[in-house]
């Protein structure tokens, strides 16, 4: 592991960011395929870093293709096959990235996930091909009320305990026994320990452990195929983009725990509890990233934003319910040297004023349908912006139309740096020649 001259504790946020950027640029223990691959890798990370840190203009506009299941369809695999045939999926993502030659790789681990493990898990938050969806369809989110309206106090009192013993048994059949997970505190004194130990005699808990063991085994078999792809792509010159992910506290509550409708009822019926819960979830959402980070972790942290978009709530509601806890999450990550990549799905035009309030040169704002010129005007000198080739373009238009759009976008928002060309929203399907046209546009028209 890379080390610093000063202890980590004594480093400032800027020093930590610089350290992580350097670790991204010089991945420890990686053997490049060739000196050309090494040079390409370093040029790409430098290009991305220059765009993100706003310190200088990059050599050209960096380009990323934030795709979902598209590598599968490109290789002739259905999403079902991508989630079930680990070998072919790994090969598809490898070949796809090598073919596309964007400035960073899209790893297989977010879409070509292990269907068999999810079957064993009996996971209820999503449906996927072969499990509620046809084989040609990518996975989709299913909302449910995994936390009841009268459970805010339990969540606020001890979020981890709530997730472990209430949320997990509800969201996944394999975790049902965890409702009986014995209290860890029993173990502090020998005479109390047997009541903890006796807990493991509960048949429900044993059944859960057996299922989880099988899930772990299946997921490890999947990981053995998938993770080497990331290393091989790095060795070929393609850096990782996102190193970790977390969620806005309001979305964690609204998407996952309560559900959209229930969350809205709570905003009117028990607004104080909503705000208290969002605050309480901030450190949890920071630790989600930092707990498994090493000093060599890739600095970008993906944060998909859902319920704060234009139309989902008023500006006042955004500033009251959504933004304060997200802002604290951003601060918490930036303090650790991470660079939040905030994916503003939908439109964010009415939020542009509010979201200027972020630590300078420390986040990436990725936009979907937001007017990019307005975004640039609002965030110039504050944050790198990324986006926003639409599905309408990459799925239905011609490569010439994609090129024309990208060229126009580059002319509009690239001057001065701080821009990464990308799709607006995750591409589960696309015409490959259109994504190629997008990547090529950055190379042809993006030089500074």
């Amino acid at each position, binding site marked *: 592991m890379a080390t610093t001259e000063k202890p980590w504790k004594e480093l400032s946020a800027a020093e930590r960011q610089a350290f992580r950027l350097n670790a991204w640029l010089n991945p420890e223990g990686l053997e490049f395929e060739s000196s050309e691959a090494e040079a390409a890798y370093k040029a790409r990370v430098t290009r991305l870093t220059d765009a993100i840190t706003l310190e200088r203009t990059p050599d050209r506009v960096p380009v990323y293709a934030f795709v979902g299941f598209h590598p599968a369809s490109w290789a002739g695999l259905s999403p079902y096959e991508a989630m079930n045939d680990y070998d072919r999926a790994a090969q598809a993502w490898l070949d796809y990235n090598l073919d596309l030659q964007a400035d960073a790789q899209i790893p297989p681990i977010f879409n070509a996930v292990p269907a068999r493990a999810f079957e064993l898990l009996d996971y209820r938050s999503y*449906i996927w091909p072969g499990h509620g*969806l*046809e084989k*040609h*369809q*990518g996975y*989709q989110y*299913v909302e449910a009320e995994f936390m009841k309206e009268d459970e805010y106090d339990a969540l606020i009192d001890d979020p981890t305990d709530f997730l472990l013993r209430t949320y997990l048994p509800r969201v996944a059949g394999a975790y049902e026994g965890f409702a009986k997970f014995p209290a860890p505190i029993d173990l502090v004194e020998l005479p109390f320990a047997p009541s903890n130990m006796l807990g493991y005699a509960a048949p429900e808990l044993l059944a859960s452990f057996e299922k989880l063991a099988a899930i772990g085994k299946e997921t490890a078999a999947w990981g053995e195929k998938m993770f080497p792809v990331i290393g091989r792509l790095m060795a070929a010159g393609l850096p990782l983009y996102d190193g970790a992910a977390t969620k806005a506290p309001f979305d964690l509550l609204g998407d996952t725990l309560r559900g*959209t*409708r229930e969350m*809205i*009822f709570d*905003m*009117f*019926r028990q607004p104080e509890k909503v705000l208290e819960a969002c605050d309480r979830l901030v450190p949890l959402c920071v630790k989600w990233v930092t707990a498994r980070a090493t000093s060599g972790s890739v600095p970008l942290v993906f944060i998909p934003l859902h319920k704060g978009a234009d*139309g*989902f*709530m*008023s500006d006042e*509601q955004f500033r009251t319910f959504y933004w304060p806890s997200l802002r604290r999450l951003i601060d918490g990550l930036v303090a650790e040297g991470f660079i939040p990549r905030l994916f503003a799905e*939908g439109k964010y035009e009415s939020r542009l004023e509010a979201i200027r309030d972020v630590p300078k040169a420390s986040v990436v704002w990725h936009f979907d*349908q937001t007017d990019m010129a307005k975004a640039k005007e609002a965030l110039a000198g504050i944050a790198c912006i990324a986006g926003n080739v*639409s*599905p*309408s*373009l990459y*799925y*239905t*238009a011609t490569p010439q*139309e994609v090129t024309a759009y990208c060229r126009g976008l580059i002319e509009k928002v690239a001057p001065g740096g701080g821009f990464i060309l990308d799709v*607006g*929203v995750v*591409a*589960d*399907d*696309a015409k490959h020649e259109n994504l190629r046209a997008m990547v090529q546009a950055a190379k042809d028209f993006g030089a500074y």
Partner: protein
Amino acid sequence: MAHELVEALVGMKEKEVLRIAEELLGRGEDPLEILRLSQEAMGIVGERYEEGEYFLPELVMSGEILKKVAALVKPRMAAGAPAAQKLGKVILGTVRGDIHDIGKDIVAFVLDVNGFEVTDLGINVPEEKFVEAVKANDAQVLALSGFLTLAFDSMKSTVAAVEGAGLRSNVRIIIGGGHMDETVRQFTGADAYGDDAMAAVTFAKQVVGVN
């Protein structure tokens, strides 16, 4: 000056709305009048949504309060209460393969408060179900919702299915969702696309010939 029930509902004051409704019932007020006041309030909520003052939370919350008012007054209503005259019939649903419903629900709400009879087929609706509903209801408008790229294909096949059933000239079709534009409209063969929920209202009004 609006009735206090209207004011409370427009102000999202759930407990107050229910208290007033109970008081009115206790005083012998006609349950139909309570529903009429609630509808008046929903109309104002719809207007405020159209004007950009209210957003999804107010639509969802007022719908929830209305449901509670209806549950309160309906047991006391005589059977066969007269239904209000509607402007036209709209069939609405999220297309096959897509399970997103928030945008679709908003469209149902604004069409309803603007006087349309909306048949909401739900999510992941197969082509033939849309065709059957258009036929059975003699609907003037078919509104297809979808969020994912795969919805583009399902919209296209739904339009083709309507055409195949010989119904294309009877019904006008609008698509809406996350990423609709003129290019996607042409791809699917629909008559119009909507950027926001109000586009569906404007379109439906045009189709039935009202302002």
